[in-house]
């Protein structure tokens, strides 16, 4: 191992950690006596600067670290990590900007520092390919999230949500670690490419499936898919709004990036050039043996999430819980994209070369990333709107949105754009994300099963429109009970409008983001 390489590869994380320390020093050392508003603003701005620095670090470094063979260093910084890492940093910055308006805590330095450290954990998760590093990154991220959930010390709900989140999280971490220990036991290595190579050569064993189930349980908790979703509604409801926005977006991006890394490892032909004299036929044979059981486990979880998430959301009266269940449903769609990797088609036609398989796998990955990034952005905006309404009315119930179009027309139109985008109405970005994802699913794998799955997903997203419309109906249609205007902090409003504008622009010109992502996942 070369420590200079390691330092270069982890430069973005380092930048974030330095920013976290700086925030603490500045806030605790110099700003202690100043007004809360000033401290919040300074902390948030420092945090955003830190994200900017980390972003710069990524783009400065990755061209030189791209070709590092990721075998002996536990992390990598290459084409495949740039997109999720950029997403994590941008979303972190946006959620910090939404923090500017908050008054739920007076420990602002600590809040910003924890956010930045959690984001560093997210970066690590998105770039790791060694089980130990993965686990450390996940714990760094998760511990940060538990603290953030509990940050509103005056709110009983916040404490309750944090405890639930923490207990579930601890258990899922145990599952994950247990699964990792099996993987290590089976292969004698903690490097995922090494593991894949060993398992490909020695053949799959039932224990391997058990290990994968345990891993899926652990990661399924992070991304909140059925049946590991129970923490999500409570946490989304109890956590302070900026923290909830962070949990709903950044941690999702990081966890899905990890799932992608784990899944892509099975399709990555890297190891073939590594000296093992494994033939192409063996490659396909191993895929045939190892991938489908893994895919089926993911599919079961995905289908259950789509159905249960959407149906449960129908019955919610709290908008935050509604967003939580809709997040579960969205996680189901995304998992569909990961689960239907080129597996099925490979075995039908034998004329596939591994280049095509690998190309299709990258296509799925690009579609999944597009979805999760745009979803993260939209959902942060949705939480921003909810928090403004909540502070004005004291509750996040559906009825507190009554007459929003009169109380704050701009906020109402932002809400309209974001929720319609979540529902997948063109020309907003949510529609394009869905179309792209489903087209990728069908494009990489033909046959009745993918068709049926996509049909189910489309039908379920038609169902989802009902509950999104329930919110919009209150904002636009039903008569207002209280017509006093709702005031929002100018920065919050500006951020929300910018998010809505991005949702519209990216939806009208999908090729912008699509092209950028695909430049890292070339066809």
């Amino acid at each position: 191992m070369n420590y200079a390489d390691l330092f270069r590869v982890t430069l973005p994380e380092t930048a974030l950690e330095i920013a976290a320390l700086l925030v603490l020093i500045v806030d605790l050392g110099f700003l202690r006596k100043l007004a809360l508003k000033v401290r919040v603003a300074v902390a948030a701005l420092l945090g955003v600067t830190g994200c900017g620095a980390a972003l710069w670090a990524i783009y400065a470094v990755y061209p030189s670290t791209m070709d590092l063979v990721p075998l002996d260093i536990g992390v990598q910084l290459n084409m495949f990590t740039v997109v999720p890492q950029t997403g994590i940093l941008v979303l972190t910055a946006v959620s910090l900007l939404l923090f500017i308006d908050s008054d739920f805590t007076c420990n602002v330095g600590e809040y910003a520092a924890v956010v930045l450290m959690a984001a560093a954990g997210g970066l690590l998760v998105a770039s790791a390919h060694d089980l130990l590093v993965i686990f450390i990154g996940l714990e760094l991220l998760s511990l940060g999230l538990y603290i953030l959930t509990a940050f509103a010390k005056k709110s009983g709900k916040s404490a309750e949500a944090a405890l639930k989140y923490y207990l579930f999280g601890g258990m899922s971490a145990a599952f994950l670690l247990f699964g990792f220990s099996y993987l290590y036991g089976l292969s004698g290595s903690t490097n995922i490419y090494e593991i894949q190579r060993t398992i490909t050569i020695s053949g799959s064993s039932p224990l391997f499936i058990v290990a994968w189930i345990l891993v899926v349980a652990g990661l399924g908790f992070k991304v909140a898919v059925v049946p590991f979703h129970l923490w999500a509604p409570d946490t989304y409801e109890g956590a302070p709004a900026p923290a909830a926005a962070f949990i709903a977006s950044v941690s999702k991006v990081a966890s899905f990036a990890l799932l992608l890394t784990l899944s892509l490892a099975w399709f990555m032909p890297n190891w073939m050039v590594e000296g093992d004299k494994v033939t192409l036929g063996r490659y396909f044979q191993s895929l045939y043996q190892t991938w489908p059981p893994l895919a089926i486990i993911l599919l079961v979880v995905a289908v259950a999430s789509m159905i249960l998430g959407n149906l449960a959301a129908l019955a919610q009266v709290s908008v935050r819980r509604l967003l939580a269940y809709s997040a579960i449903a969205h996680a189901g769609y995304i998992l569909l994209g990961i689960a239907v990797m080129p597996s099925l088609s490979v075995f039908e036609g034998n004329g596939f070369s591994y280049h095509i398989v690998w190309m299709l796998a990258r296509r799925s990955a690009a579609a999944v990333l597009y979805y999760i990034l745009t979803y993260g952005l939209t959902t942060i905006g949705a939480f921003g709107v909810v928090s403004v309404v909540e502070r004005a009315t004291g509750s996040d119930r559906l009825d507190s949105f009554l007459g929003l179009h009169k109380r704050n027309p701009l906020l109402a139109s932002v809400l309209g754009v974001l929720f319609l985008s979540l529902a997948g109405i063109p020309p907003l970005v949510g529609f394009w994300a869905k179309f792209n994802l489903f087209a990728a699913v069908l494009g990489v794998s033909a046959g009745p099963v993918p068709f049926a799955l996509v049909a189910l997903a489309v039908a379920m997203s038609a169902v989802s429109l009902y509950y999104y419309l329930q919110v919009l109906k209150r904002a636009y249609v039903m008569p207002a009970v209280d017509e006093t205007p709702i005031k929002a902090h100018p920065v919050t409003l500006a951020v929300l409008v910018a998010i809505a504008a991005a949702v519209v622009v990216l939806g009208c010109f999908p090729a912008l983001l699509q092209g950028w992502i695909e430049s890292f996942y070339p066809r």
Partner: protein
Amino acid sequence: MLAWTIYLSFAGALVLALLPKGKPALARWLALVMTIAGLALAVQGFIAGMGQGRIVLIDLPWVPSMGIHFLLAADGISRVLVLLTGLAAVAGVLFSWNIELRTNEFFAFYLALIGGVYGVFLSFDLFLLFVFYEIAIVPKYFLIAIWGSTRREYAAMKLAIYSFAGSAMVLIGLLAAYATAGSHSTGLIELTHANLPVSFQMWCFPLVFTGFAILAGMWPFHTWAPTGHVAAPTAASMLLAGVVMKLGAYGCLRVGIALFPRGLDPWGFSFIGIGSWRDVFAVLAVIGIVYGALVALAQTDFKFVIGYSSVSHMGFVLLGLMTLNQIGITGAVMQMSSHGIIAGLLFAIVGRIVYDRTHTRQLAELETMHLSKRLPFAAGAFVVAGIASIGMPGFSGFVAELQVLVGAWIAKPWWALVAGVGIVVGVAYTWRAMQKAFFADTLPTPDEHRTGWPKCAAITWPEITGVGLLAGVSLFVGLYPKILLDAIEPAVKALLAGGVQ
């Protein structure tokens, strides 16, 4: 130039949404100017396109890596329907002249809906078509839910759910067709020439066709239509019946039939005389014709009569499509434009001219009101519209329905026979409604003798203009159908020949 109908409508919607509140007159005039400009562009495009085939208006790569193009084009069918949309839009604005609540938002949603409709008729890329199709659905919900009447929230949600269920089916078909054709392009022409396998077309055709036909009011998925029409504010019901239902029928033709022609082939076996998807949908269409007419006959609410008559008339469109012959499909397109005008006129009379003055739509109450004497203009207009609606020669409906019936007779005579029954019942329910609403000979009560009838508000100029416009166009098309037929026939011929013109 035709493409500007879309841009202009969306720009108008944006401007109106940003307009300061409390200036209803400005909003109205702005909306009127925008729709008239749209109509002018449509007329210009129609005249310029006479005798020509498909004209590409704009073709830009939209998502190059997936072969999606921003491709707007117009053939004869598109030009006729764009013209219809322009007309309906202008008339709709005229009949919403009395909207006082949130006027600027009303017209913003209205123009957004119109823009989506123009977009669907002009898209020759399936993805783009779908985008516009969905854009047209959302404003409908808000138009009905905010400005509607009777059970408006229920009706609006029902309509939204039906529409999105339909468009979900279309989206599945779109994704499936795109993937099956090799994920190269979503252009309608490219997909038509992609040689989609017959087995695929066999399941994708009914899916897509049903998805679109839900919006066209096909029995038994029609129930959103009467409730939606009744709850909607006048302009919205004019648009719903006038153009939005045509979106569905247009989709059935342009996407369902043109893209999956083999999906209409016989199955190879038959069950009680039904041996293909074509038979299935034709039977549903015929049932819709007769059922809609019979239910209209039994209604006590004036607007429900018109609502169910729309289901019946749209049945003719679907039947015409299923004849799969030149004359039948031409008739279907004619019926689309004809019904768009006539239904708009009927809804305007019932929902605006009569209801806003009497505040009731119950036929039993209207019977006692002597409307033929108190509102002679409304009575006269309804007689004209009723005559047009039952398909009397001289009006556009006659040409259209005759062609559909001839086409159906060529395809399968019994379809034409049953549909003919629907026409007869159509005469009955129109006459019944007309008689009850306007010409009932109940005697005035003693009170009314003493005091006279309470005054009805005078008929306003937008109403007269709107009625004149719609009735005039229906009459003109009825007397000189060649003007539309010349545009429609070559386009239908090209479409049937297995390609797009």
